[in-house]
């Protein structure tokens, strides 16, 4: 059997309610019974005495005129009252004048002397003097049975049960409903205890008035040794702790107040304190309720983030320095190779045969390709490193500018292009310009062998997203290689067919990803390609 202490609080409360209700009802029943018994005896005594008085009044004449027969006649009707077991009339000298005895009952006393009105076991003896004016002319004696107390209790028992059981049945649901309210403070307390954050209440004097389990854990001290002591004792900076709750009293609350709890074993816990005043129902300030949030882990994480960011910044700076070097130092030798190859071709033309001249030419082409490659790689790395703006960008205008540049670079080409209306997106102008330079440049490049080249830049809108696309009728590509398109240094065409180094689409993808968009390409060999990108509008 479970011990009482192990029972759930609701069950305990129900048991307590039922027990107290039962006790109260039983007590009430006993009191009612006792009172009823008293009232019953009073009533009985009153009734029987009244009857005795009536008899006495009637007996005056009988006694005065010494007429026991008439007295007897007066007594006979008592047979109608089953409670009365005996009656008698005595003369003043105590001699029996007239008597009545219920069959089966003891006779009235033979002498009327020394009789007193009283209750005895289950009967009441009434005595009434027969008065004629000031003169007593006799005594009336009446004996009546009273209902035994036990009989009354047993009779009332049923009534008590009838009252008690419905009362208890009524009490039970009421008790159940009230329990929630009663159990609420207990529930609140359990919530406070369940908090993993150290919670304390502090009196206006700065004395701890209550703590929860988490506080005990954080300090390593028992509840008893914490309560009643100064709140500021448990921090590495007691002055700062004191200032914190003084601030609460001054302005009503503090938020994220940094303090460090010192455990008795020396362990330190960084916490942020959030505290406010708590008041009673009359809005009198009772103290400060303070909740500490353990931020040791957070601080560690922040430290970690700071370190990582630092490392990243260092790496970025190194990368920048590297790019800078690449930009300067890699190109300079290339320029030298190209320049001196040219010088050689010019100055020593007579000493070189056509073979030699063609080698020099190939050296120069190679250096120029490498120059482009370096430029593109720098662009790609810059795309990742550079700061981004978020502004409204008119892609249509940008595209028109790019087409103009392309046209200028190859004035001999006739390319039909179309730019759709309202091509507006949000992003970094410089980066999006790079996207268009690469995509339109690709289209320009891959339509070179097309007799009627056509390039289109527009947008398709559905469900609130807009997908921009650059469509050409150039050489296209096999969709089997579609996933390779955006990888850096991936090419689907040989450099001999079309110049390029495979960095352009990788750069496009990186820029679009940085904007939160997506890229994809559709193509059919010989029928052109379409490159799509989405941007937040």
């Amino acid at each position, binding site marked *: 059997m479970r011990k009482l202490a192990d029972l759930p609080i609701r069950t305990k409360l129900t048991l307590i309610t039922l027990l107290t209700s039962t006790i109260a009802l039983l007590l009430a029943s006993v009191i009612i019974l006792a009172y009823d018994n008293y009232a019953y005896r009073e009533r009985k005594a009153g009734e029987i005495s009244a009857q005795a008085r009536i008899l006495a009044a009637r007996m005056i004449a009988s006694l005065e005129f010494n007429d026991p027969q008439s007295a007897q006649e007066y007594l006979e009707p008592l047979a109608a009252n089953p409670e009365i077991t005996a009656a008698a009339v005595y003369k003043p000298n105590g001699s029996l004048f007239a008597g009545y005895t219920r069959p089966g009952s003891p006779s009235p006393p033979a002498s009327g002397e020394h009789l007193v009105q009283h209750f005895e076991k289950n009967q009441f003896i009434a005595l009434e003097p027969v008065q004629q*004016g000031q003169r007593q002319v006799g005594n009336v004696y009446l004996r009546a049975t009273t209902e035994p107390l036990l009989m009354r209790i047993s009779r009332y028992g049923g009534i008590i049960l009838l009252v008690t059981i419905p009362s208890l049945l009524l009490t039970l649901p009421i008790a159940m409903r009230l329990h929630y309210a009663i159990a609420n403070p207990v529930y609140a307390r359990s919530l406070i205890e369940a908090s993993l954050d150290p919670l304390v209440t502090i009196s206006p004097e700065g004395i701890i008035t209550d703590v929860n389990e988490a506080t005990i854990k954080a300090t390593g001290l028992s509840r008893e040794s914490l309560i009643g002591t100064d709140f500021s004792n448990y921090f590495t900076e007691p002055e700062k702790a004191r200032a914190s709750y003084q601030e609460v009293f001054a302005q009503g609350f503090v938020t994220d107040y940094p303090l460090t709890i010192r455990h008795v074993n020396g362990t330190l816990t960084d916490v942020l304190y959030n505290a406010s005043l708590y008041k009673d129902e009359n809005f009198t300030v009772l103290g400060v309720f303070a909740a500490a949030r353990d931020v040791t882990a957070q601080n560690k994480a922040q430290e970690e983030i700071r370190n990582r960011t630092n490392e990243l910044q260092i790496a970025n700076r190194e990368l920048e320095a590297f790019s800078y070097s690449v930009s300067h130092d890699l190109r300079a030798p290339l320029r030298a190779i190209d320049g001196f190859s040219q010088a050689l071709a010019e100055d020593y033309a007579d000493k070189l045969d056509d073979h030699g001249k063609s080698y020099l030419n190939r050296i120069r082409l190679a250096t120029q390709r490498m120059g482009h490659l370096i430029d593109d790689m720098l662009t790609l790395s810059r795309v990742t490193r550079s700061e981004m703006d978020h502004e409204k960008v008119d892609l249509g205008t940008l595209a028109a500018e790019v087409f103009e540049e392309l046209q200028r670079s190859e004035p001999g080409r006739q390319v039909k292009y179309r730019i759709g209306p309202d091509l507006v997106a949000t992003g970094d102008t410089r980066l999006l310009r790079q996207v268009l330079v690469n995509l339109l440049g690709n289209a320009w490049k891959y339509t070179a062998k097309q007799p009627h080249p056509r390039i289109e830049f527009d947008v398709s809108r559905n469900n609130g997203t807009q997908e921009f696309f650059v469509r050409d009728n150039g050489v296209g590509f096999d969709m089997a290689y579609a996933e390779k398109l955006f990888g850096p240094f991936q090419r689907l065409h040989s450099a001999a067919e079309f110049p390029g180094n495979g960095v352009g689409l990788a750069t496009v993808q990186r820029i679009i990803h940085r904007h939160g968009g997506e890229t994809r390409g559709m193509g059919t060999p010989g029928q052109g390609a379409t490159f799509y990108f989405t941007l937040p509008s």
Partner: protein
Amino acid sequence: MHNSSLPKATFAVASMALALTTAYAQIDEYAVKAAFLYKFGLFVEWPSSAFASPSSPVNLCIVGEDPFGETLDRVVADEQIKGRSIVVRRLKTVERNPACHILYVGGSEQQSPAEILETVRGSPVLTVADAPHNKSETAIINFVIEDNRVRFNIDDAAAAQNGLAISSKLSSLALNVKLRATNGDE
């Protein structure tokens, strides 16, 4: 008074065995009757006009022959009727509206019981008499001896004539009650 009791005593002494019991019975009979005589007053209501004042005594008159002698005086000496003391008056004759509240009709040659009753009829007087020889000459209360005990009859109609009310407690002890016309006690 002494003289009047003497013949009966003489008679009692004359016939021995019977005389003893009779003499005893006679003495006892009139002692009882004397007590009854005033006790009747306890159960009778007189009209207020019958008394001069609230403290006026109740006059108990013996008219004519007196069978009680000093027994009566002794019996009533310390008694009261509803707060009034009792005065015993012995009269030869009575007039109409006599100063009597209870009147024992002894009777004499000067005024016979019938004449006495006739004289006070209509006056607020409770007339008491021994068992009448003649039925027409009844008092309001008439003593009778039954089973060797003093009992009485009540003529409530006569009481009504005299403006008296007789308590039912008294009536219930009577052997016979002649009811008044109104069929009520008071």
